[in-house]
């Protein structure tokens, strides 16, 4: 009787082990493709979260005048690129009641998914997202431009990335950002003036839909800016404040 039970336990263990392995095999065979898709979307969502963290730190740098922040991160399923402002061809042009235009190149911190199609970019204080090889884009988090109706003041924050050269990161790393020079502030006033903003797209990296939705939506002012051709117009603006921040991104 004792002998018998000893033998059966060994066999029982082997059966159990085999069934476990078979189970894993089944999961690998049928569950794997599903899990892979899940992985890609999880990676992308993690990156969206990470970008929001980066934007949070950029807000601290710009709005709270803190000189240095770093974000530690793990970039999975793709890579993170930093483009110096001079290497990007998108432009924001701001003109105010006929005065000289401000032409601004933002630069980018961009994540490109390897397995999926998502491209998530931090530029000019906003987080924008588009799909590779397809039209359209959305804004995941908005910059903090605002129009104060009491004083008819329009406040625009321009955030520019500076990097010594284009660099990329995948895996665990650190994104050191610093703002050691004070922002340039331009604050012309012209009672009843008109502000015209134009976004010039980079056809390989086009976020014009995202910016259009932001400008014409109601986050800056109720009712949004008026779209006139390719430009967005706001009036009356007695006082325009344009603050330009330069954020240097060091070696990752």
């Amino acid at each position, binding site marked *: 009787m004792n002998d018998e039970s000893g033998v059966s336990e060994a066999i029982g263990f082997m059966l159990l082990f085999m069934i476990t392995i078979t189970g894993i095999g089944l999961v690998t065979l049928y569950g794997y493709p599903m899990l892979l898709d899940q992985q890609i979307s999880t990676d992308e*969502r993690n990156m*969206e979260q990470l970008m929001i963290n980066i934007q949070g730190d950029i807000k601290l740098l710009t709005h709270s*005048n803190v000189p240095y922040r770093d974000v530690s991160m793990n970039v999975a399923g793709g890579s993170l690129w930093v483009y110096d402002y001079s290497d990007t061809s998108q432009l924001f042009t701001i003109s105010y009641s006929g005065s000289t235009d401000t032409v601004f190149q933002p630069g980018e911190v961009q994540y490109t998914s390897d397995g999926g199609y998502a491209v998530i970019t931090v530029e000019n204080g906003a987080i924008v997202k588009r799909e590779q090889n397809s039209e359209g884009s959305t804004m995941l988090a908005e910059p903090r431009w605002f129009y104060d109706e009491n004083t008819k003041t329009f406040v625009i924050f321009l955030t520019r990335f500076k990097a010594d050269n284009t660099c990329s990161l995948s895996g665990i790393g650190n994104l050191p950002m610093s703002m050691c020079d004070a922002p340039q502030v331009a604050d012309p006033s012209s009672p009843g003036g008109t502000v015209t903003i134009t976004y010039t797209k980079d056809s390989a990296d086009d976020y014009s839909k995202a910016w259009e939705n932001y400008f014409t939506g109601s986050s800056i002012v109720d009712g949004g800016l008026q779209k006139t051709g390719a430009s967005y117009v706001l009036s009356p603006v007695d006082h325009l404040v344009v603050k330009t921040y330069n954020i240097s991104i060091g070696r990752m």
Partner: protein
Amino acid sequence: MERLNDEGQWIVLMGFLVCVGILFLSFILSQSTLVGQSTSEGVLEFPKDDIQDLRSEIIGFSGNSGIVDNLGVQGNLMGDISMLAINRQNTVCTFSLTRSGDDVNMNIHFNNGVVEYDETSTLP
């Protein structure tokens, strides 16, 4: 032996059931979108202390007749506050103090694009 084999089957079956259950639940949970902004970021963003500071500063002015009754000085201080606020705090701030009888009427306007605060009150 037969009896023990039975038990093994039970264990494996249970294992499978629980495993499938956990996977299923975690799928559902992972479908929920991640919270975009954390609580502490929300706290950092909300300018509670800035507004309290501005309020207490202007209430401090209201006890100083050299500021309330002297529009030149008040204009100067208003210039200081609005220029420093837009430059350093990225905020549009304006205020006014006017005397009416024994009381002082105070107006404060604060707007940083996320939070707008307006106050009109009478200070004794």
